[in-house]
């Protein structure tokens, strides 16, 4: 006998315990809004065009200060990613040099298997060049940031597989700059020299100046495609999506495998249920 009540109770207890653990005190400040992403939910996949645009922003703007040490050039043509061709990626990699003691000059052009270069040789160099602030590595940054929802809404996240907190945060951060300290700032807030005010950065004083602005980057428009708006909002979305991909480059194949596994488990469970039921039909229990 399946006791529906028992199963419901077991599920509730499990999620109750697991969910309770996920609650984190909400930071003071503006609440980060959930955005609509092509990669959200169990059916979500990356939008190739968006990843290519995001890569362009990363390369032309972000990568002058931020590294991505876990990203190999080959990732850029692997399935589920931005979908560049192998030739494009090899040519791109060759534009960057890497130290190699076995090479004649001590340096050689990068190949597809090499990682994305760091803009600074050491953390100290990075700090010196950025007014003491350390630009974090982008490799898993989208996973290292998140949002919080008030009780009881975060419970829903377990059922919708909400994994886009990082992208939501990055989008909010990039669009959350103010030229001057706004009225919404905490009382008595004083912006330190060389810092910028941001609605969503913890403590509001961020060392990075607003990196993006309307019209900063020109996107190439493909044949027969509608032009993408050249706005801060669009840039922020695109680069947030790209960072999500960098943090989780194999999401698409993982979800595809997930569907096969789920289908198998449901069918197998059904069969097991039928066998078990038939077996027990003879027993008073």
């Amino acid at each position, binding site marked *: 006998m399946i006791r529906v009540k*028992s199963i419901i109770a077991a599920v509730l207890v*499990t999620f109750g315990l697991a969910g309770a653990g*996920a609650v984190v005190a909400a930071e003071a400040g503006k609440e980060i809004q959930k955005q609509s992403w092509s990669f959200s939910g169990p059916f979500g996949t990356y939008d190739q065009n968006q990843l290519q645009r995001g890569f362009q922003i990363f390369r032309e703007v972000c990568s002058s200060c931020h590294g991505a040490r876990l990203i190999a050039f080959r990732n850029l043509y692997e399935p589920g990613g931005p979908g560049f061709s192998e030739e494009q990626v090899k040519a791109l990699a060759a534009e960057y040099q890497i130290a190699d003691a076995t090479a004649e000059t001590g340096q050689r052009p990068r190949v597809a298997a090499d990682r994305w270069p760091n803009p600074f040789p050491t953390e100290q160099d990075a700090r010196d060049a950025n007014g003491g602030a350390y630009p974090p590595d982008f490799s898993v940054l989208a996973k290292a940031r998140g949002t919080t929802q008030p009780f009881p809404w975060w419970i829903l996240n377990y059922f919708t597989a909400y994994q886009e907190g990082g992208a939501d945060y990055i989008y909010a951060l990039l669009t959350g700059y103010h030229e001057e300290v706004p009225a919404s700032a905490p009382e008595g807030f004083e912006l330190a020299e060389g810092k910028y005010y941001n609605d969503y950065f913890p403590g509001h004083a961020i060392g990075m100046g607003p990196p993006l602005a309307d019209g900063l980057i020109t996107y190439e428009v493909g044949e027969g495609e509608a032009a993408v708006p050249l706005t801060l909002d669009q840039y922020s979305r695109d680069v947030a999506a790209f960072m999500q991909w960098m943090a989780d480059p194999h999401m698409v194949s*993982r*979800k595809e495998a997930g569907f096969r596994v789920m289908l198998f488990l449901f069918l197998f469970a059904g069969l*097991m249920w039928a066998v078990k039921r038939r077996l027990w039909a003879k027993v008073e229990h």
Partner: protein
Amino acid sequence: MSGHESTYNPSNPVEKWLDDRLPLVRFSKEHLMDFPTPKNLNYWWTFGAILAVMLVIQIITGVVLAMHYTPNVAMAFDSVEHIRRDVNGGRIIQAVHAVGASMFFAALYIHIFRGLYFGSYKAPREILWMLGVIIFILVMAIAFMGYVLPWGQMSFWGATVITNIFSAIPVLGEPLLQLLRGGFAVDNATLNRFFSLHYLLPFVVAAVVVLHIWALHVPGNNNPIGVEVKSTRDTVPFHPYYTMKDLFAIIVFFIPFAWFVFFAPDILGHPDNYIMANSQVTPAHIVPEWYLLPFYTILRAIDFNVLFIDSKLGGVIAMGGALLVLFALPWLDGSKVRSGTFRPMFKWFYWLFVINFIGLTYLGAAPAEGVYVIFAKICTAYYFAYFLIVLPLLSRFETPKPLPTSISEAVLAKPHSGSAGAAVPAE
């Protein structure tokens, strides 16, 4: 085991030869197939088998992960990412192991709460229960050390906070702390010894699980009505009846497991653990994994001094006591009736205890300020009161409902007994 004859007859000379020297087949037949099991076990009883499978899954995935992981402060973080990005099948194996820890605890808590409700800790199953408590404590230690291995911010600061607990112990505290950390602070030595112990202790758990099952097979299973097996009419052979039922439950359990592994592998962890450990930057909130939160709350709830015991030591005593009190449970609950089904007053206190425990979990992740502090104290007080006051007193004052004389009688008295798919009255 006890009280039933072996039905094994070696069918050929080779089996006969083996049986005279090492009766492995006979042993397996008696314990894995013929073992008489009460026929009225409900699905709460399948979590034992689910846990056995989870332990095996954790060990197998863990052994594979150890082939690619590097226990070094400079390389650990990237080596985990290397597994997820570059190792064939690595992202699935790593996700199964990380999510598996949470699923293991989900099953473990259900298994423990099943035992608490149906009085599975009462005579003659005290040793069985105590072995279970040992497994629980060991698994908590293993999971905690496992969480340190990716060497993220929560790994590092969790390790710092939790090892620091030991410094509260008088006299022995400081040397013990240094022994645990392998130095004055959490560092490479800590990571290495945690990795070593994280690999070793699961095999100790496996050994205790063998004892746990041995101790189960001496008195046999408890059951939802808590009346001992009276005759063979009350039982069915373990195989095929419970092998099939357990297998079905295991497959169903795999569905939420797979959901997390494939669609939300990071949702049960903390984003801060994707930041590499940094001893110079303290996270805003240091939160252990969800399954340790109830006990973390109890640790933090004691923020006042009692006589010569300062709050830090008091917290450690309370947290240790919360676990150790479980060992005394068989003697604290004096009621002769095992199953909560027949204990009208017990039921109320039990479900309050369940809600209280979920409350303790919730509070562990909440900041230690304002109203949360008061709730933490109330919940901690009820946790102890349940074991030390409620259960001992209930056995004196409670009048249990009349018990069925046997499992068979109880089964026949059920309204829709035997018709498959029918709902059974709540226990």
